């Protein structure tokens, strides 16, 4: 399937198309125009109980346009890339912009700030593109089989899925920026299932998963290891039960710790600030977390999942500390939110095909601590080790945090029995300030990543009502 390969020529072609559309938009009457073009292809191979369940293979291309005219904006997109269709899109966009109201903050960035080169961050592996459906199916089969073989209590499966995406992105602006890059990403996830008859009156299924992912084929874990780890994690949840409502220590496994780090960004960005939608408003430079907490957004890590050479405004990307030893640093901004707050962009603009740019993260990483995970657990007398979080119980305006959780009960430094159907709650400000131990088990498998860490206490809601 070498036909899937994304070449430098493809990137060049997309850059040309983006530049052409900028020209067409200006001809149609736009004062300024910004054009994003994406070309992507996917291959998904899913197996269940050893048999193929789905093979999906396709490519697509789309173009997003933003025009500015007399300070007014319109955003449009299409997958019809014929020249006459693009001309029509440009004309319609300009007409549409006339209905908007002028927004002085929406001007394009100062051309002097635009990126002048596109660094090669080694984000594309041709070997990922060489994979065909048959090979992908074999990987998925191997991963699932390893899980089922590992433990007889794995009685069913939600399958094994091997997938890859390949893509090229190009961006051009009337301010003079043009650039593009390509990327690859491959992953395998295995999802075993067990029957849990611990409670005979209410038998349940228990599901779990494990995964591997990388931009580079050779960096993926072996399917056998993925399957075995998936089986271990699933079987361990057999007999899960509620515990009593109480205050206790909460230890976050890296799989959920990263969602806490993602929540930090949701209230530490320029957009939530100018919208007054963040409880952190006005707290830059202040201690907002335990001194053990340092979170850095780093787009420059070679081969990393969230790396990118320029941002959605065409500015160079750069390393931005978000929280440094507990202190909130200047929040991540794109050009627009920066202007709204009277400051410069941090080069953090993200942009989708059909939308305005807004602040986003690249590789958002909580830095590791000095304890091993085993030491951290051994040092925890009683509490909950959380492996799963459910729901969306976070209010960015107030910081109120309440989410469903599952994991394992910790007693005298050891994981004892599995726990589910409980919630953990506290104000997010308290959660961050109560982090009292950070482990050294950081892995950069996902764009947002964190090591295991512990919050000294939160409210766990389970059985028996409070008085």
């Amino acid at each position: 399937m070498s036909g899937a390969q994304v070449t430098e020529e493809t990137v060049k072609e997309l850059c040309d198309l983006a530049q052409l559309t900028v020209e067409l938009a200006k001809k149609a009457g736009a004062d300024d125009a910004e054009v994003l073009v994406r070309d992507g292809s996917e291959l998904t191979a899913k197996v269940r109980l050893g048999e193929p369940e789905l093979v999906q293979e396709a490519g697509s291309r789309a173009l997003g346009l933003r025009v500015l005219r007399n300070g007014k904006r319109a955003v449009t997109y299409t997958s019809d890339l014929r020249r006459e269709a693009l001309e029509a899109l440009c004309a319609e966009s300009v007409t549409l912009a006339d209905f908007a109201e002028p927004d002085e903050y929406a001007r394009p960035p100062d051309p002097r700030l635009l990126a002048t080169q596109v660094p090669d961050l080694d984000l594309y592996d041709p070997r990922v593109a060489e994979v065909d459906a048959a090979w992908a199916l074999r990987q998925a089969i191997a991963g699932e089989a390893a899980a089922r073989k590992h433990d007889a209590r794995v009685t069913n499966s939600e399958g094994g899925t091997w997938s890859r995406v390949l893509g090229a992105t190009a961006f051009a602006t009337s301010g003079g920026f043009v650039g593009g890059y390509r990327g690859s990403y491959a992953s395998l996830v295995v999802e075993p299932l067990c029957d849990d008859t611990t409670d005979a009156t209410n038998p349940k299924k228990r599901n779990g998963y494990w995964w591997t992912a990388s931009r580079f084929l050779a960096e993926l874990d072996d399917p056998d290891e993925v399957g075995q780890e998936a089986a271990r994690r699933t079987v361990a949840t057999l007999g899960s039960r509620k515990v009593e409502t109480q205050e206790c220590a909460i230890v976050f496994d890296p799989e959920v710790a990263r969602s806490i780090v993602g929540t930090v960004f949701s209230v530490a960005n320029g957009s939530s600030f100018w919208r007054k939608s963040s409880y952190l408003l006005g707290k830059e430079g202040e201690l907002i977390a335990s001194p053990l907490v340092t979170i850095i957004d780093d787009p420059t890590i070679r081969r990393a999942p969230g790396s990118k050479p320029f941002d959605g405004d065409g500015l160079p990307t750069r390393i931005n500390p978000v929280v440094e030893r507990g202190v909130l640093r200047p929040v991540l901004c794109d050009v627009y939110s920066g202007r709204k707050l009277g400051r410069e962009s941090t080069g953090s603009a993200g942009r989708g095909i059909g939308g305005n740019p807004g602040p986003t993260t690249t590789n958002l990483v909580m830095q590791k601590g000095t304890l091993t995970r085993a030491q951290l657990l051994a040092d925890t007398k009683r509490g909950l080790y959380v492996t799963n979080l459910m729901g969306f119980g976070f209010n960015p305006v107030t910081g109120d945090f309440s989410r469903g959780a599952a994991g394992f009960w910790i007693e005298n430094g050891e994981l004892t029995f599995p726990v589910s159907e409980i919630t953990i709650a506290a104000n997010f400000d308290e959660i961050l300030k109560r982090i009292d131990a950070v482990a050294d088990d950081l892995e950069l498998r996902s764009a947002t990543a964190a090591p295991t860490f512990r919050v000294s206490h939160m409210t766990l809601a389970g059985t028996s009502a409070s008085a």
Partner: protein
Amino acid sequence: MTTTLPAALRAPFGAGGASAIDAQLANRLLGLALDAGGDYADLYFEFRVSADYVLEEEQVKTLGRGITLGLGVRVTKGDATGYAYCEDLSWEKMAHAARTAGQIAAGGGHAPIGVGALASVTTPSFYAVPAPSLMMPAQDKLALLRAADRAARAYDPRIVKVETSFAEAIKEVLLFTSDGRMATDVQPMLRFGVRAVAEDKGKRQSGSGGGGGRYGMEYFADATRDAAAHGREAARIAIAMLDARDAPAGEMPVVLGPGDSGILLHEAVGHGLEADFNRKETSNYTGQIGKPVASPLCTVVDDGTIQSSRGAINVDDEGYAGRTNTLIEKGILVGYMHDRLSAKHYKIEPTGNGRRESFRSMPLPRMTNTSLLGGTDDPDAIVKSVKRGIYAKRFSGGQVNISNGDFVFSLSESYLIEDGKLTAPLKGVNLIGNGPDVLRRVDMLGADFQLSDGIWTCGKDGQSVPVNVGTPTVRIASITVGGTQA
């Protein structure tokens, strides 16, 4: 009723369009798809035009518009699916997609099966909109945004920020199947939303309002849901929540208000009754047909035929007409929601629940409008019956684990019940429970059934589809409330 659309909103694959697809051409493509030995194939052509308008800081900030066009080709062999799509309706690209999807059957089985003559499926009409909102001038929609903004600000001087949005789309689909069915549908959708932030003495809270469905602009003619009403509702919640106090933690009785609370039902039982999970024996409702799975008070229905509702479908994305399907009758599980694949497995008729996000995705069993039907209790009497508990009025969302049935819901507006009266508003809190457990604990059901206004979007396997939910006032004897006051 027929709708006459202007050229810009008409699908290019329709009769007279630039890439008109007729039965003969569809037959050829289906033939190619089945060439490698598949059992069944279908073609799903989709054309979608959407627009959105956002008002923020009393200014119309951005207008957006998008066009999507494409073809999805599916081939099945046994339980296996091959799927491919293209965005370019040239013969070469469509034929490539058909052959790629057909590869799922490669190397196995029989000679290509013939494709039957294609006959149009008769479809009902649950959302005949004489004039889709996309045909109406942009100024009309901007006027709605301004009206909602003004109403929210006028509600209380403590409202410091208002965002209003209007999103509209029209989607035309054209379907052909190798078992001889041909269907077409035009699906309008609009959604209006308001978010207000209130500030007082250093405290900030937000509230949301909104609604919509498969309507044209006539949606706003009803004064209970015009733009200003949605604006006031968002402001009311934001102001009410300024006084919110920390919620309790632990198990206690919960009363669900009518309408929005249906989201609890959607998560607690709805997903577990989608037949794919049961066919694969991964749901905790597997093998439970004919057995009690809820309190005898509970009758749960998934109904794709509710006029103009956000979840209504004339025809599902596999060419089967939308239907009313009873899932739980007086506490007994009577049926699942099916797509073609699961219906074949269970040897029954598809139930009209095969839905997909777009031509880029294969259909799955999905909900449409899912409701817990009303009972006989007086809603006030239900609240009065609770000594200490929670009254849940508005929800912001939920999630379920299909396998073990555990679910969570986020409450965006709730109150403490003390001695049968609503007292203090509570800060945002989650409820967590287990689907079968919670439905067994339903012990009072109001006579005030209400459908939620159309705001819900359901996600499954990375695919989003519009749905709706409904309930009467419901009392649950006990459920875990995830507050901070242990």
